């Protein structure tokens, strides 16, 4: 499918999701137009609102980007959440123990986050070996292991003294990802995310490694025949994908919380799958869709404050979008339906004339 068509379908899906979501909102007693208005104003009504949207978008762009790499390489990496959790913890541990001035401490921490995420993605890859088809099961399992493992490490080795929740102490000042403004959660992570979008695009479309990753993603058999080492390349794909997801965790921990805290991710790793899918697994598309979901998240908070509509409505909307995007047959069916309809309306007159001619 061409990029144009994918974009069109994504847009249609969005509109359809909003329409159906509107019915659901009115069914629950709300006013859909008011609700959507609240979302828009809550997202773009002020500089602060926009900054909030971007702050929520940052981790989504990163995890989305991680998923784009994996999906392009034909691996259904659904282990983003685990990779993110482990990556965040590794970055924080580095930030706690490496005594270096800014920005060196920060750089070391970010690298630690990337490496941890990459390792977490590489483990299932090595374990499934050549049987790559079952890799996605492995990545799923590594999610809960990653979350619980991080929790265990923090509880028993890195717990902040006298802490009431499972959290570490704050990282050294040299490892903090600074915010643009003390009143907002928006930090320099967004710049990192945007740079990474370009890096990933360059990697996928301008390097031989990217060529082989994409080739395997579409047709591993033909790639193998042509001499590409499919296992090696898949491992590379997973390293990059997991690394970026790990980086997402590092950015959240170092930029927003300055520490690792249990439940710091409300499912960014999972949302990354949605973001990547809606973006048509295009790295630049992730900028758009990541921001869109950031907007929904940011809005869900302002909505909770101002409207009767429950926060879950946003989750429902997300789900609807995914369902529609994930079913391209829906749109081809629609297109055929309308095509047939048009065809039936137009030549109706012609048939009538022919009927008079008495051919039968």
């Amino acid at each position: 499918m061409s990029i144009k068509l994918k974009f069109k379908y994504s847009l249609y899906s969005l509109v359809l999701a909003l329409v159906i979501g509107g019915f659901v909102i009115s069914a629950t007693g709300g006013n859909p137009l008011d609700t959507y208005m609240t979302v828009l104003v809550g997202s773009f009504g002020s500089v602060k609102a926009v900054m909030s949207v971007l702050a929520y978008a940052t981790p989504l762009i990163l995890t989305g980007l991680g998923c784009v790499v994996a999906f392009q390489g034909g691996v259904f990496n659904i282990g983003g959440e685990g990779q993110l959790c482990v990556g965040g913890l590794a970055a924080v541990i580095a930030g706690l123990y490496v005594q270096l001035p800014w920005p060196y401490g920060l750089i070391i921490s970010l690298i630690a986050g990337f490496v941890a995420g990459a390792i977490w993605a590489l483990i299932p890859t090595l374990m499934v070996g050549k049987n790559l088809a079952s890799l996605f099961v492995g990545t799923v399992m590594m999610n809960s292991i990653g979350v619980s493992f991080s929790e265990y490490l923090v509880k028993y080795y890195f717990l902040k003294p006298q802490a009431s929740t499972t959290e570490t102490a704050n990282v050294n000042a040299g490892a903090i990802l600074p915010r643009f403004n003390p009143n907002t959660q928006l930090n320099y992570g967004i710049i990192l995310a945007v740079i990474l979008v370009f890096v990933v695009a360059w990697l996928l479309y301008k390097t031989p490694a990217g060529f082989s990753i994409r080739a395997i993603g579409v047709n591993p058999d033909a790639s193998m025949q042509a001499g590409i080492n499919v296992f090696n390349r898949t491992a590379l794909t997973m390293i990059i994908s997991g690394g970026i997801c790990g980086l997402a965790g590092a950015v959240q921990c170092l930029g927003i919380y300055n520490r690792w805290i249990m439940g710091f991710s409300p499912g960014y790793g999972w949302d990354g799958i949605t973001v990547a899918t809606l973006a048509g697994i295009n790295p630049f598309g992730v900028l758009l869709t990541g921001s869109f979901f950031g907007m929904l998240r940011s809005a869900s908070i302002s909505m909770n404050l101002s409207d009767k509509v429950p926060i879950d409505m946003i989750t429902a909307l997300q789900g609807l979008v995914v369902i529609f995007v994930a079913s391209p047959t829906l749109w081809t069916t629609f297109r055929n339906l309308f095509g047939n309809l048009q065809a039936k309306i137009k030549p109706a007159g012609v048939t009538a004339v022919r009927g008079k001619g008495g051919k039968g």
Partner: protein
Amino acid sequence: MDVNAKNQSAGKCEYALEAIGITKRYGNDVLANDNVDFHLRKGEVHALLGENGAGKSTLVKTLYGLVSPDSGKILVKGREVELKNSAVAIENGIGMVHQELMLIPYMSVAENVTLGREITKTGGRLDIKKAEAEIREISNSYGFNIDPSVPVYKLPIGVQQRVEIIKLLYRHADVLILDEPTALLTPQESDLLFKVIENLKKQGNSIVFITHKLKEVYQIADRMTVMRGGKMITTTTPAETDQAKLAELMVGKSVEHMEKKKRKIGSKVILDVKNVSIKGKENRKALEDVSFEIKEGEILGVAGIEGNGQTQLAQAIIGLTHVNQGEIRLNGEQIENKKTRHIRDKKVGSIPDDRQRLGLILPFKIHENLALNSFDKAPYAKGHFWQRWDVIKENAEKLVKDFDIRTTSVNKQAGMLSGGNQQKVVVGRELSTPLNLLIASQPTRGVDFASAGSIQTKIVEAAESGTAVLLISSDLDELMAVSDRIMVLLRGRNVGTVEGSEATKEQLGQMMLGVSEDSGYQPATLVK
């Protein structure tokens, strides 16, 4: 009752199936069918001829409800019908046997035939006995000689094809579309198929027969329709048109036949295969103790019915199938069970037998496909971090010209090309650099003869420049025209090698079937 219905409608209309003014455009620029008329008379064998990309596939897919035309209409026995899908086509008595057979190997003939139209007892239980009886009846009435209780995988490909035909007869189809039915068959099996077609015709069925092989047309067709460039060129009879004229009609210009030249064969052994055995499915050996060598500039043909170890042999040489015993040497260096990349770096090219699944990445652009085996090397790549797309495209333009790949741009997806041109992309890629060894598996299968000719010429040219060639093909004419020697594989064993200049079709066919010359010719109808 059905027979009565058939006879009644036969009285009304001369034609079993008609297509009138069919036009189909794919995307914006590919006009696959341009106002095509096609008339199939009742009880005739009608050959449909044309090069790849001539629009035959589109036309028959339209007749079978797989493609909906942009305009035009289809008449079944004089009655206009709208064939929304193949189920509707079958309801209208139209059935198609695809080139790739669509059978489930481990199910019996009866189960395969009745699949989707099962006969049930009370409570929805399968009544396989009744099904078998019905199929036996069909089989006997047409002289097919098939045991419905045998699992399909035990049957030779020619018999499997008859199972496909029974599938259609069971669904009361009386218009049968056969898409290149002889592509996979030995000469003997083809002869049997022609007898089957005669029988079908005698009993009032009408047959559309798609083929590239002109000789077959003269063997069985009553009439023939030639298509070229999406247009219907003419409908004629074998008596009115001779082969040369027919070839000219198909290509649009007179065709030169490739003359076999004596090539110089070097003394250096390039590929040396010694006692190679490969494990197959179910503890059977896919290859057993196979030995041969190919010298510099030599073309070794491999004949055999599909599934007798050819694929495993080709895949083993490029390192994609594990060799259990024996050794493979390339220029003296052992290469068995080495990595594909390592082997390809020794200047080994490979044209796989399934271009769509193994040869190409269909959604990728033509230039990307042309660089698939060398994209990470100079000049296509500058170090690890820069792909030289400009060089790739430049080279692709050159290859498109050299190998006569018909496309408007190298930026098109490979999947948009016709089969013959897709194959030229694969061949062009593999032959774009000088080779020590070329493995060509079915390089011209399903390719029109003009393209096939140019592909064969390229392979011969490679041999002339010193490349050792392993040519695996089910087209005996091709093997005999091109090969210096022909090796025959039967059940994974090398059952003999004949000189290319001395080989005859009959001899090869008998070796392929395992029939010795003195025991006389026995048709391979059933393997029990």
